């Protein structure tokens, strides 16, 4: 039977999708605007059906370290938070990357810096794709722009995390988390059995049989020559991800003379701006990066010789802007428009900025 179309918030969709994916454990701590993830999981009581563990930890730091423990056993484990809470998790995220552990982290961004505001923002772009935690690591980053993608990216995020033995993040914001839309939830999948985990993740610390040496999960290596080898291995993996896993969407791009570049909720608002511009006869298109890392550098570079200007539209002071500029490498003018601190732009504001900065 076809799955029923439901109406729900983005946060609720993440929770339902996590249960249906066969997630083994969720460890979280409440913070607006993402608390519905934990609330929905608690209301659904998946520990009675799939056996999934849902735990409200004593803090964000505890939650990410529980994720580290679960991931070390080869389990499908996840956590979620919002900006200030993600800052607390960054040490653990760096450790996950250093130990090459797969895990899913959800950030439903709010305005900062500091405790900031609970209203939507996209100001954690740098934090997510440029490190955040210490060391030369990369975080696979998916930016959903609809409730449907909130649901779909749970499976995609976990699959990418396990394919590359690397943490993955769903980078959403208060708009996508709080809005309700139609969604078709993914089908139920059984949780992996211990036997399946032993086969698929032979590195997992699930108890040592006599037949092999102990599996050791660590990010610590005091011998710098081995640590350099480890880093070279990470970097080779990151290049493979950059080669294979770039995802983006092009809207009205085929005949575009100008491009908006936007991700997540901003891309939705830009889509309306494109509709209005097209009605005025302006050939405006929208390129929406779906993966923020790996970034659609080649796709943007391809437009550098074809369009007359680009506007990077973000709910921040100009972060993705830097990656757009690097991609086109000075061959076309790229400017930025944003609102800060939890204020969300309207489609009209975007068009006014586009006309001022790019289209004269």
């Amino acid at each position, binding site marked *: 039977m076809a799955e029923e*179309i439901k*109406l729900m918030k983005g946060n609720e969709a993440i929770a339902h999708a996590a249960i249906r994916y066969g997630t083994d454990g969720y460890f979280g701590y409440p913070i*607006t*605007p993402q608390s519905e993830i934990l609330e929905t999981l608690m209301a659904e009581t998946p520990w009675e059906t799939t056996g999934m563990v849902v735990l409200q930890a004593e803090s964000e730091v505890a939650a990410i370290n529980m994720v580290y423990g679960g991931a070390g056993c080869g389990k499908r484990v996840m956590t979620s938070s919002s900006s200030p809470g993600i800052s607390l998790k960054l040490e653990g995220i760096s450790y996950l990357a250093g130990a090459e552990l797969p895990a899913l982290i959800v950030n439903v961004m709010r305005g900062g810096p500091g405790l900031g505001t*609970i*209203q939507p923002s996209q100001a954690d772009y740098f934090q997510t794709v440029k490190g955040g935690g210490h060391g030369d690591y990369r975080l696979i980053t998916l930016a959903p722009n609809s409730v449907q993608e909130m649901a779909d990216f749970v499976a995609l995020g976990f699959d990418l995390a396990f394919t590359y033995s690397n943490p993955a993040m769903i980078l959403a914001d*208060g*708009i996508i988390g*709080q*809005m*309700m*839309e*139609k969604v078709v939830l993914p089908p139920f999948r059984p949780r992996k059995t211990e036997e399946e985990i032993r086969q698929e993740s032979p590195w997992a610390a699930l108890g040592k049989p006599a037949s092999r040496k102990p599996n050791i999960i660590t990010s610590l290596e005091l011998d710098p020559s081995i640590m350099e080898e480890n880093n070279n291995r990470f970097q080779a993996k990151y290049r493979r991800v950059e080669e294979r896993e770039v995802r983006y969407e092009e809207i009205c791009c085929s005949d575009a003379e100008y491009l908006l570049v936007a991700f997540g*909720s901003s891309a*939705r*608002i*830009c*889509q*309306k*701006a494109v*509709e209005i511009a097209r009605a005025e006869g302006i050939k405006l298109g929208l390129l929406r990066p779906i993966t923020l890392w790996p970034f659609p550098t080649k796709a943007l570079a391809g437009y550098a010789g074809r369009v007359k200007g680009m506007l990077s539209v973000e709910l921040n002071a100009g972060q993705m802007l830097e990656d757009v500029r690097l991609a086109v490498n000075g061959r076309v003018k790229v400017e930025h428009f944003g609102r800060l601190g939890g204020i*969300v*732009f*309207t*489609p*009209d504001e975007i068009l006014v900025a586009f006309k001022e900065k790019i289209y004269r």
Partner: protein
Amino acid sequence: MKQEIIIAGFGGQGVLSMGKILAYSGLMEGKEVSWMPSYGPEQRGGTANVTVILSDDPVSSPILNTYDIAIILNQPSLDKFEDKVKPGGILIYDGYGIHGGIKRKDIDVYQVDAMDAATEMKNEKAFNMLILGGLLKVVPMVKLESVLLGLKKSLPERHHRLIPMNEAAIKRGMEIIRKR
């Protein structure tokens, strides 16, 4: 067909749940819908608003510049949203929350005395359904059956016994709305 609607008032008036029921009703008719709330420390006393879009085509932005319909339930919301109704659009207000002072001449203005009617019905919780009834009388964007189905979907089962009261309130709202 596309209806872009803002519902704005005090927290606790049922603004968000009215929007939710409207969105569910659209869903029951196979429409594309989006429901975007103001969220935050706004329950009971602060201002709350929700943008609801019902459309035959996929919805691009859940955030809007202007609205086809504004449902205004208190004075601060009138100040904030009166200018954002599209020319030729509709503004519906509750006569208890708003004491006139509407300046726009290029839109259709309707009054529903929902607070008074809810008091008559001895059920202040009927307030938002009275307003919804008024809206559906003026713009029958979804059928009453769809609303009742939407109520069933959006209310937890333990509240299903309240559906007849909600239906009565919607019908009463349809009777008492009047053009200004």
